[in-house]
């Protein structure tokens, strides 16, 4: 007994310095943690850019703080006890089996904290499932390994969409407008996630799920498929692009503009024929016609397991290809676009892939050997399990001239 009292006195003398260290440790840990994060990470979900992500953020921040404090308290307590009760030759302690009152108290305390977390959690769950404020509906469909967007006709955030728009990779939405995505899949399960705008929602074949999507300001918000979906799961990416209402109107008008064939005699005109011969079995360009005037219609369901391939009518209005993985624009232009202020963003985005920004390397590589850039199931000798259909884009054995022609043709698709 004497000895333990002596220990307490010694500790008492030292306590003035020691009392401050838990607080200091807390501050240092919290500071270190915050300073340890990357700045401007494009998919930081603690950096919300729309009301849905904002609601989640408001809910989760206190939870993370409480969790951090609880962890620090426990670790601090363990550290203190380990130091204080180290074997310094003291007697074997009393063989006490516990203290029921203390234990009941220590059971109720976390229960109260958790109840405090549970109530706002449930409220937010229902909040984020509301659908009655929707001003625009967009169908989002996942397939190996890219996202297709299908804009239904009707009003979208004050803009009239007179004909369906089918696009991929970049989800263009009106800013500051509650959009509802209807998410599904054509093959395996995928998951649609734009971290700065909302949490993720699985795209499950045979099921239709909804996901609220809203951005406060014009800008580009990146995301990735987050349900493991096979070989090229890592190369199934996407972005949401928010435009103000006028810019969104421009974008819609551009998407619905009738097809303009390349000027006769140009490289692009040869490219059109090359496209029809090699690409149009799967890829649709709206309005494209054969020499005799009959429309060229794609039949991807004959060749691809998911039954679709990206519609590339306006390919050059998007900044990346192949599951939004490989950039069509150079790094400089990409950085400028990604960091553009909300006021400048719309004009920059609507300019599309300009000659100054166009980085043809990725597109050329892709046309030359798609599975070499992005692993897919397209080996023609090994398609037994799919009955001869591809999962992804096969190698077309194009020669360099054909690639030149196609690039020239595709550059005009904007």
């Amino acid at each position, binding site marked *: *007994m004497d000895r333990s009292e002596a220990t307490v006195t010694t500790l008492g003398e030292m306590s003035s310095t020691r009392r401050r260290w838990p607080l200091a440790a807390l501050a240092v840990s919290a500071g270190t943690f915050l*300073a340890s994060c*990357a*700045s401007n*990470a494009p*998919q*930081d*979900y*603690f950096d919300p850019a729309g009301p849905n*992500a904002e609601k*989640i953020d408001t809910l*989760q921040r206190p*939870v993370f703080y409480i*969790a951090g404090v609880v*962890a620090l308290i*426990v670790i601090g307590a*363990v550290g203190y006890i*380990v130091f204080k*009760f*180290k*074997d310094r030759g*003291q*007697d*074997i*302690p*009393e*063989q*006490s*089996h*516990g203290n*029921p009152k203390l*234990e009941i108290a220590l059971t109720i305390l*976390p229960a109260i904290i*958790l109840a405090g*977390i549970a109530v706002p*959690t449930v409220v937010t*769950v229902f909040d984020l*499932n509301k659908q009655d404020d929707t001003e625009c509906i967009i169908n989002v469909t996942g397939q*190996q390994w890219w996202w297709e967007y299908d804009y239904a006709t009707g009003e979208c955030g004050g803009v009239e969409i007179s004909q369906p728009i089918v696009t991929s990779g970049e989800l263009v939405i009106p800013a500051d407008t509650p959009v509802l995505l209807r998410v599904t899949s054509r*093959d395996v399960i995928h*998951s649609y996630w734009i971290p700065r705008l909302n*949490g*993720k*929602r*699985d795209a499950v*074949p*045979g*099921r239709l799920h909804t996901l609220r999507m809203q951005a406060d300001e014009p800008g580009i918000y990146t995301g*990735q*498929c987050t*349900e*493991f979906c*096979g*070989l090229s*799961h*890592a190369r199934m990416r996407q972005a949401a692009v928010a435009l103000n209402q006028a810019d969104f109107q421009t974008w819609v008008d551009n998407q619905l503009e009738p097809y303009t064939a390349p000027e006769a005699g140009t490289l692009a005109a040869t490219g059109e024929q090359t496209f029809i011969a090699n690409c149009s079995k799967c890829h649709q360009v709206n309005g494209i016609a054969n020499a005799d005037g009959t429309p060229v219609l794609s039949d991807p369901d004959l060749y691809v*397991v998911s039954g679709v391939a990206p519609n590339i009518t306006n390919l050059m209005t998007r900044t990346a290809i192949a599951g939004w993985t490989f950039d069509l624009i150079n790094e400089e232009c990409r950085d400028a676009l990604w960091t553009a202020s909300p006021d400048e963003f719309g004009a920059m985005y609507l300019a599309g892939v300009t000659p100054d920004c166009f980085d043809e390397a990725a597109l050329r590589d892709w046309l030359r050997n798609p599975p070499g850039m992005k692993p897919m199931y397209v080996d023609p000798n090994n398609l*037994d*399990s*799919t009955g001869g259909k591809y999962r992804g884009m096969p190698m077309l054995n194009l020669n360099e001239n054909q690639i030149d022609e196609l690039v020239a043709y595709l550059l005009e698709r904007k």
Partner: protein
Amino acid sequence: MAIIERPSAVPATVGAGGTTELVTPSRALGAYRRPVSTTGWKSWLFTVDHKKLGIMYGAVSLFFFLVGGIEALLIRLQLAAPDNTVLSAGLYNEMFTMHATTMVFLFVMPMAAAFANYFLPLQIGARDVAFPRINAVGFWLFLFGGIFLNTSWFLGGAADGGWFMYSPNSSALFSPSHGIDFWVMGLQITGIASLVGAINLIVTVLNMRAPGMKLMNMPVFTWMVLVVQFLLLFAMPVITVALFLLSFQRNFGATFFDVNQGADPLLWQHLFWIFGHPEVYIIILPAFGIISEVLPTFARKPLFGYKFVVFSGAAIGFVGWGVWAHHMFASGLGPVSVAVFSVATMLIAIPTGVKIVNWTLTLWGGKLWFSTAMLFSIGVIVLFTIGGVSGVTHAVAPSDTQQTDTYHIVAHFHYVIVGGAVMGLFAGFYFWWPKMFGQMLSERLGKWNFWLMFFGVNLTFGPMHILGMQGQPRRMVVWPEKLTGDGFFDLAFWNQVASVGSFVIAAGVLLFVINIFYTAKKKVAAPLDPWDARTLEWITSSPPKEHNFDRIPTVHSLDEFFHRKYEEVDTENGPKLVKVKTAEEVLAEEEANADHHIHLPSPSYWPIVLALGFPIIAYGVIFNLLLTIVGTALVLLAIFGWCLEPSVADDSDYDPPAGGDSTKELATLG
């Protein structure tokens, strides 16, 4: 199985009722005899001794731990740089699938089974488990299932659907290699091992406790193992059904998960996670049990709130069944289900928190001895707490829709599984090694082992919290430079730190392996009671004799062994604990009063033969159905052999005793 006494030269004197009616089986022929070897490889192949089986479980699990670890290192190598090319996309998918499968099913679960097998009978004062041959078949099924699963690497590629194997990505259309077939059949085989093991240990605990060993006198490790066996008993059938559905879909054209036939892929998710969440507790509770033994021993005081710890363990066992859909918050269940499972998940934090608090308070006021086992146990408290509180953040469903399938989740469950379960198992290694092998693992190497693993875990999995929160999804063969953000501490930096950390963990594990060989080579006998321990397994010799106890101990209290050594003596400063007996004296007392007739089950040829039939059936399902007939025939033969073999070996099967001793009993008296 019933234990029937062999006739013996020593007259039976046990029991007032008298066991004079001895069953002497008629002479059996050929293979229908029982093996009798007590040394050499045969003694291991045909053993039914829970201790030998425990050691084999441990050795094989450790091997698979190294395999799973190498897979993890390859994954971290691939992720050390943007758009890296160490592994191809297909190989990477196989790698993370098999890393998880190996670590969960071939390391943590069977390593816990190793400790349970070895120590549960010792802790309750039993001579073996209730069904020794079934115990043996469990081990062989685990071994053959594990080998079978890993032969997929050499037969066309391993499973590539992730350990959760979501449908329809797991169908033959989307995963045409045989990898998933191997995975399905391999898990079926190891699943039988878990299921029969569970039944065996439950019966053992309920029926074979020593006199006075009331349920609430049982050591916490035994309690936690018991809870785990009930979880296994109810969880394994669910995954078995799911796996059958999947294998019928892949191999025989069934359409359980075929959307075109009207199936809902969420069926698989529900089945998998109804198994998968209790599985989480199957993984962690044995480690909780181990550190609940280690902490009191090295704090020199009883576990704080024994009853609270036991009941919270049982509560986790119950509530663990009502939280599975928290793995599916983004699956599109609808707000009502999500809200319910969200709250239920928070509920389970309470009993888990109770345990942390009780361990911490066990240390309070103690006389702490920082042995390696103790360091690992304190490490578990710290690391599991971090994994626990990040778990609470996932319970907040809207937040989880951001976190799920990102590295934040990877960080969380690795803190729980590596920081909790694996570190707990390492505490068990250092604590029980002298009991199992009669030799002390080097404490000096052990401490290096601990600190490397402790820092390695934080270095590897700590940064993953940041990676996840800043938007890096998991199961990605590459991460692109353009999504890493700016600043020195960008995501590329943290990916590199995590990769370095994984090699620090590997160095720690390597030291453990070195320690094993170093200890084995040194051959220094351990003291009988090196830790001044508290529970029944320490009341016998190290390693224990084949029959465990010369006299079945009579139990008077929790921490029976401690109370045999220590008594409270009144001094002028009040009562004080004084050591009144050494462990050697306690053991001598037991030996002096040895039971006169000890019966043990005989070894058997049939468990290993029976188990061998299953991988043959599995290969048959994958490659040629004719093989399944061969495998089934072997299983049937083994079942007949099992039923027809005599209950004990015939006297004439034994070699003539060397010393002219007329006693040919397998288990001679101590």
